[in-house]
C-alpha cells in the first residue's frame, strides 16, 4: 500500500473515537445499550483499521512521515502545529492502543451491562463508552504527536480519562467517597508528573527553539555537547512525568487505588496502554536520553527499583486487582529499565506483550468478579446469609472470598492461566521473550540491575502462583464463589483473542527474526541489535519456575480453608508481611510528609494569614479611621470656649510659622 495515500488517513485515528463520542452523546439515549456499545466499539475498531492501514503503508516506507492538520498556536517565535507523526513507533503504539482497546470495548459491552445493574445505575452505561472513546482519542493524540506540546495534550487527556473512569462509580467505595478520592489522587499525582513534563517542555523550547521532535532530536548531540546540564535537567524532569504516568517510584501510589475503576478500565488504561505512555515517551526521546549517561542510569534505576519494590507489595495483597496493579507497576519498571538502558526495542517489546497478557489478566479478573457478583446476588436472592455478613460488606474482589473457581469458570481459568504464565515469564509465552530481552541487555551492561530484575522476576512468578492458587484452586470460600458461573461470550471471546496474543506475542521479536527491532529501528534512536543469551534465558526460566514452585508449595498444596484464615506467610514473615500488606506504608508516609503539611500550611494561610493579617490590615485601617474619628470627636466638646481655644491654637501655630520662617 502506498504510504502517501494512507497518510492523510492519520487524523482519523483520533476522529473516529471523537465521532463515536458525538454520536453516542447525541443519539445514545435512543440507541440503547447495544447501539451504544456497537458505536463505541466500531469507533475504536475503525481507529484500529486506520492504524493497520498506516502500518501497511509503512511497510513500504518505513521511515514514515508527518501529516499536517492545522497550525494550533503561533505566537512570535513559538509555533505549534497539530501534526500526526506516522512512523513505526507511533503506529506500533496505535495498533496496541486501538487493538487492545477494541477488544476491551467489546468486552465492556458485556461487562458493563452487568456492572451498571450491579451498581444500580443503568443510565451510566453510555457515559462509560463515551469516556472510553475519549480515552482512545486522547491516547491517539499522545502517540501520534509530532511535538512535545501535542504529546502533552494527549498526555493530560488520558490522565483526565483515567480520572473520569476511576471515579466512574463516584458514589461508591469505602465511605461512598473512596472511588472519587482515588480518582482525585490519580489526577493530582499525575499532575505532579505533568509538572515535570511541562518544565521539560519549557527547557526544550528555550534550548532548542522548537518543540518539534524532528528539530529537537536532530540538535540533541550539539546541545548536549555545549549544555550537558540542560539535557540532564530536561531528561530528569521528563522522568518525573514518566514516573507519574507510568506509575514508577516515587509517584506510583495512584495506580493501586485506580483499581476502583471498572475492570475494563483497569485493563485498558491502567495496564495495557495509558501507563505505558511514559515508556513510550522515553523511547521516543532516546535521542535526548542517550546523550547523558547519568540520565539513563537514573531512569534505569528508577525502573529497576520499582520493579522489585512493587513486586514485593504484590505478595501481600488480597484484592485480585490490587495484585495485578502492583504487578503492572513492577512490569512497567521492567520496561522503564529497558528504555533507560537504551534497550528501547526491548522495552517496547515488553510493552506490547505486557499489553496483551496484562489486559488478559485484568479482563480475566473482571470475569471472575462478574462471576462472583453473580454468585453473590444469587445467594442474596435466596435469602441465605453468607458468612461474610450482609450485602455491603461483601467484596467480590477479595481473593480470600474465592477459591475453586477452576471448575466454576473453566474458560476463564484457562485463559487466566495463559496470561499468568506469560507474566511469570514461562517459555514460550510472550512474556518470556520480552522479559528475557530486557534481562539479557541488563546482564551485558548492568549486572547489578540484572540481579535486581531477576529477583523481581522471581517474586513475579511467586505472586502469580499465589494468585492462581487462591482464586482458582482449593475450595470455594464463600457462597458467592460457590455460586459463580462462567461469563457470557461477549466477555470471553475477547479473552480468548487476548490469550492467543499473549501466547504467541513473543513471535513479534523472536530471537531469530527480530521483526520488531527491524520495524522500530526506523524511528528509534540508536537501536543496538539485541542479543539472545541462552544462559540468561535459561536462568530466567529457572527463576520463574522456581517462583511458581515455591508459590505452589506455600499456597497450592494446602489451600486456605476459609476467608478469615491468615496468609500462610504472615506468621513466618511476621512484621515483614505486615509491611507488605500495608504497602510499606508509603501512602501513610506521603500523607504525613506531603498532604498533611500542605493542608496545615493552607489552613495557616487561609485563616491566620489571609483573614487575620492581610484582611485584618485592611479592616484595621478602616477601624483605625473610625477610632480616630471617635476620639477626635471628643475635641469637639460643645464648649464655645474650647472652640475659641482651638482657634487660638491655630493662630499661635500660624504666628509660630511667621516667627520661625
Amino acid at each position, binding site marked *: 500500500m502506498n504510504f502517501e495515500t494512507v497518510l492523510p488517513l492519520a487524523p482519523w485515528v483520533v476522529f473516529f473515537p471523537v465521532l463515536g463520542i458525538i454520536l453516542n452523546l447525541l443519539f445514545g439515549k435512543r440507541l440503547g445499550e447495544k447501539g451504544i456499545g456497537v458505536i463505541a466499539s466500531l469507533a475504536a475498531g475503525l481507529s484500529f483499521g486506520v492504524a493497520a492501514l498506516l502500518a501497511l503503508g509503512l511497510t513500504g516506507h518505513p521511515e514514515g512521515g508527518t501529516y499536517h492538520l492545522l497550525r494550533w498556536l503561533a505566537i512570535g517565535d513559538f509555533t505549534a502545529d497539530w501534526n500526526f507523526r506516522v512512523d513505526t513507533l507511533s503506529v506500533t503504539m496505535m495498533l496496541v492502543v486501538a487493538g487492545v482497546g477494541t477488544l476491551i470495548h467489546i468486552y465492556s459491552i458485556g461487562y458493563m451491562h452487568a456492572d451498571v445493574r450491579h451498581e444500580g445505575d443503568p443510565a451510566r452505561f453510555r457515559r462509560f463508552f463515551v469516556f472510553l472513546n475519549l480515552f482512545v482519542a486522547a491516547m491517539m493524540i499522545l502517540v501520534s504527536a509530532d511535538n512535545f506540546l501535542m504529546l502533552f495534550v494527549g498526555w493530560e487527556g488520558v490522565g483526565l480519562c483515567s480520572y473520569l473512569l476511576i471515579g466512574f462509580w463516584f458514589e461508591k467505595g469505602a465511605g461512598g467517597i473512596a472511588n472519587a478520592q482515588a480518582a482525585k489522587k490519580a489526577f493530582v499525582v499525575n499532575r505532579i508528573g505533568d509538572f515535570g513534563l511541562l518544565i521539560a517542555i519549557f527547557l526544550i523550547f528555550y534550548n532548542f527553539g522548537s518543540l518539534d521532535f524532528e528539530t529537537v532530536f536532530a540538535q540533541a548531540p550539539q546541545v548536549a555537547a555545549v549544555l550537558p546540564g540542560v539535557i540532564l535537567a530536561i531528561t530528569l524532569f521528563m522522568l518525573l512525568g514518566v514516573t507519574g504516568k507510568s506509575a514508577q517510584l516515587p509517584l506510583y501510589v495512584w495506580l493501586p487505588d485506580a483499581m476502583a475503576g471498572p475492570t475494563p478500565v483497569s485493563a485498558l488504561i491502567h495496564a495495557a496502554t495509558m501507563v505505558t505512555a511514559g515508556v513510550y515517551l522515553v523511547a521516543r526521546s532516546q535521542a535526548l536520553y542517550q546523550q547523558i549517561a547519568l540520565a539513563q542510569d537514573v531512569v534505569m534505576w528508577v525502573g529497576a527499583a520499582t520493579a522489585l519494590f512493587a513486586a514485593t507489595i504484590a505478595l501481600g495483597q488480597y484484592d485480585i486487582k490490587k495484585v495485578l496493579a502492583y504487578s503492572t507497576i513492577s512490569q512497567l519498571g521492567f520496561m522503564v529499565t529497558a528504555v533507560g538502558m537504551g534497550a528501547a526495542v526491548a522495552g517496547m517489546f515488553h510493552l506490547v506483550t505486557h499489553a496483551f497478557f496484562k489486559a488478559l489478566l485484568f479482563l480475566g479478573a473482571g470475569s471472575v468478579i462478574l462471576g462472583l457478583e453473580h454468585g453473590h446476588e444469587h445467594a442474596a436472592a435466596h435469602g441465605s446469609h453468607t458468612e461474610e455478613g450482609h450485602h455491603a460488606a461483601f467484596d467480590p474482589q477479595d481473593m480470600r472470598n474465592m477459591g475453586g473457581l477452576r471448575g466454576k469458570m473453566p474458560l476463564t481459568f484457562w485463559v487466566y492461566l495463559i496470561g499468568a504464565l506469560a507474566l511469570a515469564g514461562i517459555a514460550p509465552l510472550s512474556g518470556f521473550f520480552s522479559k528475557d530481552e530486557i534481562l539479557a541487555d541488563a546482564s551485558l551492561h548492568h549486572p547489578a540491575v540484572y540481579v535486581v530484575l531477576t529477583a523481581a522476576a522471581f517474586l513475579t512468578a511467586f505472586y502469580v502462583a499465589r494468585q492462581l492458587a487462591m482464586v482458582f484452586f482449593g475450595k470455594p470460600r464463600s457462597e458467592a464463589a460457590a455460586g459463580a458461573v462462567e461469563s457470557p461470550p461477549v466477555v470471553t471471546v475477547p479473552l480468548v483473542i487476548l490469550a492467543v496474543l499473549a501466547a504467541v506475542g513473543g513471535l513479534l521479536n523472536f530471537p531469530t527474526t527480530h521483526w520488531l527491532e527491524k520495524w522500530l529501528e526506523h524511528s528509534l534512536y540508536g537501536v543496538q541489535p539485541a542479543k539472545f543469551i541462552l544462559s540468561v534465558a535459561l536462568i530466567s526460566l529457572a527463576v520463574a519456575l522456581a517462583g511458581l514452585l515455591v508459590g505452589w508449595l506455600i499456597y497450592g498444596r494446602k489451600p486456605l480453608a476459609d476467608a478469615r484464615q491468615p496468609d500462610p506467610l504472615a506468621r513466618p514473615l511476621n512484621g515483614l508481611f505486615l509491611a507488605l500488606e500495608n504497602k510499606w506504608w508509603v501512602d501513610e508516609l506521603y500523607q504525613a510528609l506531603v498532604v498533611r503539611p500542605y493542608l496545615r500550611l493552607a489552613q495557616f494561610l487561609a485563616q491566620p494569614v489571609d483573614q487575620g493579617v492581610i484582611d485584618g490590615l485592611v479592616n484595621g485601617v478602616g477601624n483605625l479611621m473610625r477610632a480616630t474619628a471617635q476620639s477626635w470627636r471628643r475635641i469637639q466638646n460643645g464648649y*464655645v470656649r474650647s472652640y475659641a481655644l482651638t482657634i487660638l491654637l491655630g493662630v499661635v501655630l500660624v504666628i509660630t510659622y511667621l516667627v520661625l520662617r
Partner: protein
Amino acid sequence: MPMSYYLILSAAMFAIGVLGVILRRNPLVVFMSLELMFNAANLVFVAFSAYHQILDGDLFVFFVMTTAAAEVAVGLALMVAIFRAKHTIDLDEMSMLKG
C-alpha cells in the same frame, strides 16, 4: 512715643481679650472681652494713622465702633432671649451640640 509702645500695648490688650474669651463662662464678660480685642485693633489703627499721618485709620476705627454697636445690639438681644428661655446665661450650659 515709639510705635512699638502702641503695638505691644495693643497686643497685650488683644491677648487679654482672647484670654477672657477662653476663660470666662459668662457670655457678657466674653462679649466684653471681644470688645477689648476690637479696641486693641482700634488702637493699632489710630497709632498707625498718626504714624503715617493718614486719616484712613481713624475712619476705620469709627466704622468699627459702629459695627461694634450693631453687634452689641444683636448680641445682647440674643443673650436676653437665651436667658428668658433657659434662665441662665452660663456659656458652659450651652454645650448640647457637640461631637
